[in-house]
C-alpha cells in the first residue's frame, strides 16, 4: 500500500502531499476544516495582511470546445478579513487538526519591523510554516507588494532575509511567473536561506472581451484590469518553470518545491512530483468542483504508486528531471514515422489535412488497394470520390445496403496513407487523430550512430581546429 505521508521543507508534516493553495478555498477556518475532512493534507491560508477591499466582479474564464473554465482569471486581492480573525482561526484549526499542515501565507508592507511582527504573530497562532506571497500580479503590486517584490530579486532576497531572522518554522517563497527567467528569484530565495519554494503564482492575463460592449472581462462597472491566469491551461507553463527551478544549481542545489499551476487530478500531481515537487497545491479545480476532488487524487495516486511499485512519494519524486535536457543534447539520428492502424481508422482525414497544411505533406488520400508506401505520383486518386459524386438516398428495397467488408471501421478509400520516406516524425497527425492508438509513431532505425547537435558542432570545431 502506498504511503502518502509527507514531510516537506524540513518539518512540515501532513497526511498527503495535496494542499489547497492560498485562495478563496482557504479563506477561513470553517472552510479549511471541511477541506481536511474531505481529505486534503494541508492548506495554505488565503494571504494574510492588512485587510483590503475587493471589487465585484472578480473572475473571468476561458471556455474551450464546450468545456467550462479551461483557464480562470482573477483580479482579487489578499484576504479582506482582519489579521486577528485569521490568526484566531488558524489556532482553532490547528487545535482540532494537529496532523494537517496549515501554512500562513503572508504579504505586508516592505518594512523589516512589519514583517518581523507578522511572522511572529502567525507562528504564535500555530501555523506549521510560512509562505511569502511575492507573486500576486495585480492590485497588490501597485502598492509595492506581491509581484512587485517577486520581480526584483534583490527585494525578494531582502524580505526573505528579514523573515528568516525571526522565523522558527519553514519559510517558503512563492514565485511569480511574470518574469523572463523564473530562476533568478528562486536563486535570490536560496541566497536568503529560504526553506522551500512554491511555484507558480498566476500569469498576467486578459481572458477576453465582450464583443457587444467592447469591455474586457471581468467587468467592473464598464472597466477591467489585467488579472492572474490559472487552471488547466497553465499547467504546461507551470511544469516547465518548476523543471527549470528544480534543475538549477546556481547559488546552491535546488530546495524543496511545492508545485502549483493547473493541478486538477492525480495525474497532474504525479507529473509535478516526477518533476521534483514535494507537495502540490490546488486552487482552480477546487473552486470548480469543490473539496471532494481530493478523494480521487488520493485514490488515483495511491493506485498508480502501487501499480508502479512505489511505496513513498520520495520513491518517484524527481524521476523525470533527468529526462529533460537541453535541445543540443538530443539525438539527431533518432527517426520515427507515423503509422496508421487501418483497422481502427474512422476515415475522418484530419491527419491528412493536418499534415498537408500544417506539417510536411506526406499523408495522402490516394489509396486504391491495401497498404502501400511510396511517392504520391505512383497512385491515382480513385475516380468519383467525394462531393462530385451524385448521391441519392438509399431506399431499402431498391438500393443494395452498404455491406461492411472485413474488420475495418471504414472503407479503404477513406483511409489515408503515410509516405514514410517524407515523414519527418513530427507527431502532429498522431496528436490530431481522434481515435486512441490509431496513429502510432514507430521507430525506423536510421542505422547511424547517435549524434547530438553539440557533438556535431564540436566535431566541426575540432576539425576546423
Amino acid at each position, binding site marked *: 500500500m502506498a504511503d502518502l505521508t509527507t514531510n516537506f521543507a524540513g518539518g512540515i508534516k501532513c497526511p498527503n502531499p495535496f494542499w489547497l493553495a492560498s485562495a478563496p478555498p482557504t479563506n477561513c477556518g470553517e472552510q479549511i476544516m471541511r477541506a481536511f475532512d474531505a481529505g486534503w493534507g494541508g492548506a495554505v491560508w488565503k494571504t494574510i495582511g492588512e485587510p483590503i477591499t475587493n471589487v465585484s466582479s472578480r473572475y473571468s474564464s476561458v471556455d474551450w470546445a*464546450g468545456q467550462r473554465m479551461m483557464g480562470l482569471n482573477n483580479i482579487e486581492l489578499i484576504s479582506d478579513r482582519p489579521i486577528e480573525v485569521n490568526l484566531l482561526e488558524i489556532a482553532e484549526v490547528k487545535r482540532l487538526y494537529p496532523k494537517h499542515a496549515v501554512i500562513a501565507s503572508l504579504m505586508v508592507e516592505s518594512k523589516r519591523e512589519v514583517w518581523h511582527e507578522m511572522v511572529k504573530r502567525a507562528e504564535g497562532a500555530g501555523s506549521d510554516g510560512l509562505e511569502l506571497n511575492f507573486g500576486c500580479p495585480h492590485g497588490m503590486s501597485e502598492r509595492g507588494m506581491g509581484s512587485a517584490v517577486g520581480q526584483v530579486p534583490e527585494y525578494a532576497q531582502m524580505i526573505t532575509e528579514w523573515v528568516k531572522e525571526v522565523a522558527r518554522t519553514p519559510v517558503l517563497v512563492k514565485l511569480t511567473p511574470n518574469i523572463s527567467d523564473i530562476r533568478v528569484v528562486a536563486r535570490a530565495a536560496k541566497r536568503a536561506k529560504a526553506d522551500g519554494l512554491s511555484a507558480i503564482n498566476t500569469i498576467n492575463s486578459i481572458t477576453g472581451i465582450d464583443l457587444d460592449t467592447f469591455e474586457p472581462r471581468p467587468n467592473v462597472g464598464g472597466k477591467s484590469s489585467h488579472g492572474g491566469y490559472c487552471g488547466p491551461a497553465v499547467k504546461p507553463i507551470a511544469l516547465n518553470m518548476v523543471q527549470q527551478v528544480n534543475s538549477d544549481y546556481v547559488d546552491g542545489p535546488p530546495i524543496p518545491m511545492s508545485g502549483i499551476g493547473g493541478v486538477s487530478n492525480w495525474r497532474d500531481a504525479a507529473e509535478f512530483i516526477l518533476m521534483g515537487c514535494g507537495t502540490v497545491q490546488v486552487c482552480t479545480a477546487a473552486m470548480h468542483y469543490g473539496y471532494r476532488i481530493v478523494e480521487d487524487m488520493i485514490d488515483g495516486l495511491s493506485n498508480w504508486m502501487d501499480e508502479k511499485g512505489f511505496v513513498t512519494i520520495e520513491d518517484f519524486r524527481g524521476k523525470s528531471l533527468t529526462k529533460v535536457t537541453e535541445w543540443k543534447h538530443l539525438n539527431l539520428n533518432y527517426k520515427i514515422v507515423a503509422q496508421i492502424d487501418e483497422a481502427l481508422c474512422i476515415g475522418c482525414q484530419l491527419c491528412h489535412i493536418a499534415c498537408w497544411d500544417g506539417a510536411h505533406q506526406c499523408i495522402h488520400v490516394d489509396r486504391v488497394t491495401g497498404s502501400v508506401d511510396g511517392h504520391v505520383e505512383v497512385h491515382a486518386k480513385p475516380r468519383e470520390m467525394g462531393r462530385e459524386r451524385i448521391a*441519392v438516398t438509399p431506399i431499402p428495397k431498391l438500393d443494395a445496403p452498404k455491406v461492411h467488408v472485413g474488420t475495418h471501421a471504414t472503407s479503404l478509400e477513406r483511409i489515408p496513407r503515410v509516405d514514410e520516406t517524407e515523414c519527418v516524425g513530427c507527431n502532429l497527425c498522431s496528436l490530431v487523430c481522434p481515435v486512441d492508438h490509431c496513429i502510432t509513431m514507430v521507430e525506423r532505425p536510421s542505422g547511424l550512430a547517435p549524434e547530438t547537435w553539440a557533438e556535431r558542432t564540436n566535431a566541426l570545431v575540432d576539425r576546423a581546429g
Partner: protein
Amino acid sequence: MDTGFVVDPDVAARFPDLHPPLGKRAAVVEANRCLNCFDAPCMSACPTHIDVPQFIKKIASGNVPGSAKTILEANVLGASCSRVCPVEVLCEGSCVMHGKSERPIEIGRLQRFAMETFYDAGGKLPLRRREERQQRMACLGAGPSSLACAAELRQLGFQVTVIDRRALPGGLNTYGVAEYKLRTADSLREVEMIRGLGVKFEVRDIDAAGLEELEREFDVVFLGVGLGAMHRLDVEGSTSAGVIDALEFIEGYKTGARLTVAPRVVVVGAGNTAIDAACAAKRLGAETVTILYRRQRANISAFDFEYEHALREGVKFLWTALPVGLRETEDGIALACLEVAPDEAGLLVPLEGSEFTIECDVVIPAIGQSPLVDLLSQARGVSMEWGRVVIDRATGQTTNPKYFAGGDCVNGGREVVDAIADGKRAALGIAAVLAGNEVANG
C-alpha cells in the same frame, strides 16, 4: 413572416414535434462533438452536399446566421430537409463516429437549429448575383424539386416563374408530410423566402395546350411535377366512401378538412407514406390501426426507424395479407383478405383456405403513386421510360433540349432531398447549357 396559414389547434396539439428542438446551449455542446472531418463523408452522403462540418462549426463559434447561409447555399430547403430527411441513412448514417462506437453527430437537429434560428430572425436570403439575366424560366410544379431549381436559377439572375395547379406552393412538403415531422406553415415559410428572392408563383392548370403555351412564353421549362394520383386499391368495392387514399388523408388533416377518424382503420401497404398515414390515424383518435402488407417485415420499403416509430405509436402490422374484396356493412366495412406466400418464382400465391375478414371503418390504401404519364407524354420530344422522364444525369436535360426535369417524375419517387438535389443540378445544368449555346452562337 406571415404565411396566412393556420392549422387547426386541436390537430396541432395531437401532432407535436416528433423530435424536440435543440436549445442553444445543447446545440453548441453537440456542435463541439463534431470532429470537423476533412472531405467529410456526411457531406458526400448528402444528396445536396451541404458542407456539414462547416455549418456545424459555425454553430459552435456562435455564428448561427453564417451557419444558416452555409446550409441554404447548398440546399435552399434546408429547413424542411432538417425535419424530413432520413438522416439515419444519409449524413448521420455516414458519420465517422460510428467507427468509434459513438453516437453520430445529430446533424439533422443541428441543421434544424440553424434553420429555425434563421427563420425566427426574419428568414431573408440575399441575392448572390446582382445582374439580371433576361431569359425566362418556367418551373412546372411547386414541389421541392421545382423550388430548388427556381431558387438556384433566380440566384443565377434568371427570370423565374413557378407554376402549380394547387393553391399553396410546396408540393408534398406542404400537403403530404406528417405534421409531427414538418408543419405546413414551415413549408410555406420556405416558399416565402424563395418568393423573396424574386421568384414568381402562378396557379395554373397545365394541359397539352398549356405546355405549348409555356414553350412559347419561356426559354426553358423545368419539369418538377412529381408523381400523379395514388394507385387505387384494385378490388371490388373500393369505391366505397370508407376508402380514402393516404395522401388525401394526410392532406385532409393538415389543411383542416379532417379533424377525426373512425375507430377502426386499416392501412394497405408498408412504405413510408403508409406509416405516416397510420400514425396520423392513431393520433386523430383511431382505436386500432392495422397495416396490411402482402409480404414480410424484411420486404417493406419503409425505413427501419419509420417502422420502429409506427410500433411505438401503437400501429399493428399484419404480414402476408392481401385484400381481395371490400363490402360495406351495417357498422362499417368488411375487408376480405387472403394469406399469401411467394411460390418458387417469387410470385405471391394465396394459401388454400386462408380467407379471412377484417371488420373496420376506414381503409387507407398507400400502395404508391402512379406517374403523371398523361401530362408528361404531352411534352413534345421528351422521352419517357417506365413512366419516368429520361434525363442526362449531370445536367437534368431531357431529350428535348428546351425541357429539363428532376425529382419524383424522374426518379420514380424518392426523398425530398433527392428532388432538391435534382432541381439544383438542373438549374446549374440549364445555366451551363445556355452558356454553351451563347458561346456556340456568339
